[in-house]
């Protein structure tokens, strides 16, 4: 298997004010509505989608989007809308929707339908993510009862998977969803279903769920790879305990990356934008981070790190560029520096997929493109083969597109073609 690199955009709002942290309670859930400017958003959405298309152009294996609600660092409540736009204007990269919070769709069968549409539209390029969802999104914004969230999530999962794999019309008698006629129409190109990614923040139940179903487990954290190692070690221990293959394709990790000509240039170009992200975008009211019942007793007792814990919030307050880089929150520097640290990260965490956060905070377009191009041309090629031949035959948890799929570069001009007069007599 080769390591897969997915260019990921959280789609942050770029204009949070300087005094955001002192004058506002939270970037998430009850963020001040007056900070959003819809006309400004017109340009912001297009800029972010252009960047995702540029990542396809640069040869990234995937381009990624995710779902957040009422969130100042993620203006993408419907990632499927963005993914649909990308499916029409890209032709190579996997469309990684990481993902749809399946318990929030009513009925969750909607996800089976929309993901099937995206898979058809993209020619089988969909990578399908099923997050349980953060408490901010799931409980406080979408009103799900914390103690029942996980049960509802598993039920939604069972419904979607059966909708994709059962060729017959069937009845689904769930506790949360009852449907007399389930008949997913359209169906996904990838059979029996697109690769499933489960993004996790550290609930240990999620590991067993991924392993029982052979789904990819991706740890999405902003704390970087050094902090993430404890958790990923726990995951791999569990893989061993359950006697599953140790192929790195089972795991993914999100990493903030800043590439420049030199280490000094990286600091000069990107420092302010990283601090914008850590100081403003991660300013979440701690009361929203852990509603009782959301985390299971098992997870609390295991003492797993939670990326939104109060002490971590306090930690961010004191961070400088040096702390961010040395602590592994951000991998930054010249292509050589970045390659060296990325190799360390990929090997330490044993991952097959890297979600590359190359746009962060309020980074302007040119810097995003500059960092991304350097990474794609001078870093990525040297990392793809890290796992050598050891897992050559291993399942890589990646999409399997059609060879003869419709490609937008061939059809875009044709789409606007005027009708030609029919030859011969019209009936």
């Amino acid at each position, binding site marked *: 298997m080769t390591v897969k690199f997915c260019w990921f955009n959280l789609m942050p709002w770029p204009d949070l004010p300087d005094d955001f942290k002192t004058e506002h309670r939270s970037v998430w859930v009850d963020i001040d509505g007056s900070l959003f400017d819809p006309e400004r958003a017109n340009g912001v959405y297009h800029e972010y989608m252009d960047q995702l298309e540029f990542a396809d152009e640069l040869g990234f294996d995937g381009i990624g989007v995710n779902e957040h609600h009422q969130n100042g660092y993620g203006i993408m409540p419907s990632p499927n809308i963005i993914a649909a736009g990308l499916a029409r204007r890209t032709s190579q990269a996997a469309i990684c929707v990481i993902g749809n919070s399946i318990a929030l769709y009513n009925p969750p069968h909607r996800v089976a339908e929309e993901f099937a549409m995206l898979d058809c539209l993209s020619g089988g390029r969909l990578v399908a993510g099923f997050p349980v969802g953060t408490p901010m999104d799931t409980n406080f914004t979408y*009103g799900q009862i*914390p103690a*029942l969230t996980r049960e509802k999530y598993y039920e939604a999962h069972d419904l979607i998977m059966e909708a994709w794999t059962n060729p017959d019309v069937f009845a689904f008698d769930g506790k949360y969803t009852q449907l007399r006629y389930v008949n997913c129409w359209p169906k996904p190109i990838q059979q029996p279903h697109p690769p499933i990614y489960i993004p996790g923040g550290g609930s240990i139940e999620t590991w067993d769920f991924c392993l029982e179903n052979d789904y990819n487990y991706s740890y999405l954290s902003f704390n970087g790879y050094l902090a993430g190692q404890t958790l990923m070690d726990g995951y791999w221990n569990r893989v061993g305990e359950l006697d599953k293959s140790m192929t790195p394709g089972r795991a993914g990790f999100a990493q903030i990356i800043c590439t420049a000509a030199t280490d000094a240039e990286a600091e000069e170009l990107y420092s302010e934008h990283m601090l914008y992200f850590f100081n403003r975008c991660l300013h979440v009211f701690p*009361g929203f981070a852990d509603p009782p019942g*959301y985390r299971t007793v098992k997870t609390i*007792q295991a003492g797993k790190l939670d990326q939104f814990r109060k002490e971590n919030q306090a930690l961010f307050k004191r961070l400088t560029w040096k702390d961010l880089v040395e602590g592994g929150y951000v991998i930054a520097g010249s292509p050589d520096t970045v390659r060296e640290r990325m190799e360390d990260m990929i090997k330490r965490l044993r991952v097959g997929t890297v979600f590359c956060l190359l746009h962060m905070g309020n980074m302007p377009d040119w810097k995003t493109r500059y960092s991304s191009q350097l990474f794609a041309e001078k870093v990525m090629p040297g990392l793809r083969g890290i796992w050598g031949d050891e897992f050559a035959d291993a399942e890589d948890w990646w999409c399997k597109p059609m060879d003869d799929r419709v490609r937008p570069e061939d059809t875009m001009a044709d789409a606007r073609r005027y009708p030609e007069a029919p030859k011969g007599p019209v009936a």
Partner: protein
Amino acid sequence: MSATETAPAPAFEEVVITTRRSVTAPVRVYEPAGGASAGAATVLALHGAGGWLPGEPVLDGLAAAGLRVVAPVWPAWSEHTDEDRLSDMQDFALHGWDVATEMGLLRADGAAELHLMGHSMGGMIAAEMAALAPQSVARMALLCPAGMWLDDHPIPDIFAMLPYQLAEVLFADPNVGEEVLTGGADFSDNATLTRFMVARARQQGMAGKILFPIPNRRFSERAYRVTVPTLLVWGRQDRLIPPAYADAWQAALPDATVELVDGAGHMLPYEQSAAVVAAVTSHLTS
């Protein structure tokens, strides 16, 4: 004198029961003053989301006034972990009746002899129990019950509150509240903190099944069935469920009276226990 010499004997006996639904949980039984009396009326008392404290002045007071008090510990508020068997409002209300059955509180001839009392979440459950089986309830006392929502008086979201914010909302005097809430626990100790976090996850997670995100499971549509004489006791300084809700409950229930208590917030049973005992005793024994 040392504390051990002055500590009174426990005011209650605790029995552990298993209901027909296979939910195991402890039940406190407070016998009326002067020993068990066959003629004493029984009150089934349901606690709020904070659970029973080691000492419950209102339950003590009712027993001293001659009532027998049966006070179940709700699933998740004890070490028995059967709370997953209860998911929604109907499960909660039926569990209340299952406890009453298991404790032998229902008369074979169906006559209404049992009184219900509940505080906050417990009041919400008691009211639902009365709506399900009004014929089995003699009288009812609700202490600032949850269960309704008024757009003009939004209830603060306790599920998004940090521990230090709770006393201000729950008590008329936050300084008193701070002491009651922490119970002197040392949270700098990791094991204590983990125990606290686990208890919080189980108990408030369970409460969330009927209180999150809006503490309204449409009781008002069933309130017409609650024909039993009901006393609503409310703290005038209740900042969680303000006294405007007392009016709404009174309007919704066919036979309800309201008693407002000064110097009490939402934790009224702990803040003005004597006044609560007097009002409830008077209502249940009239």
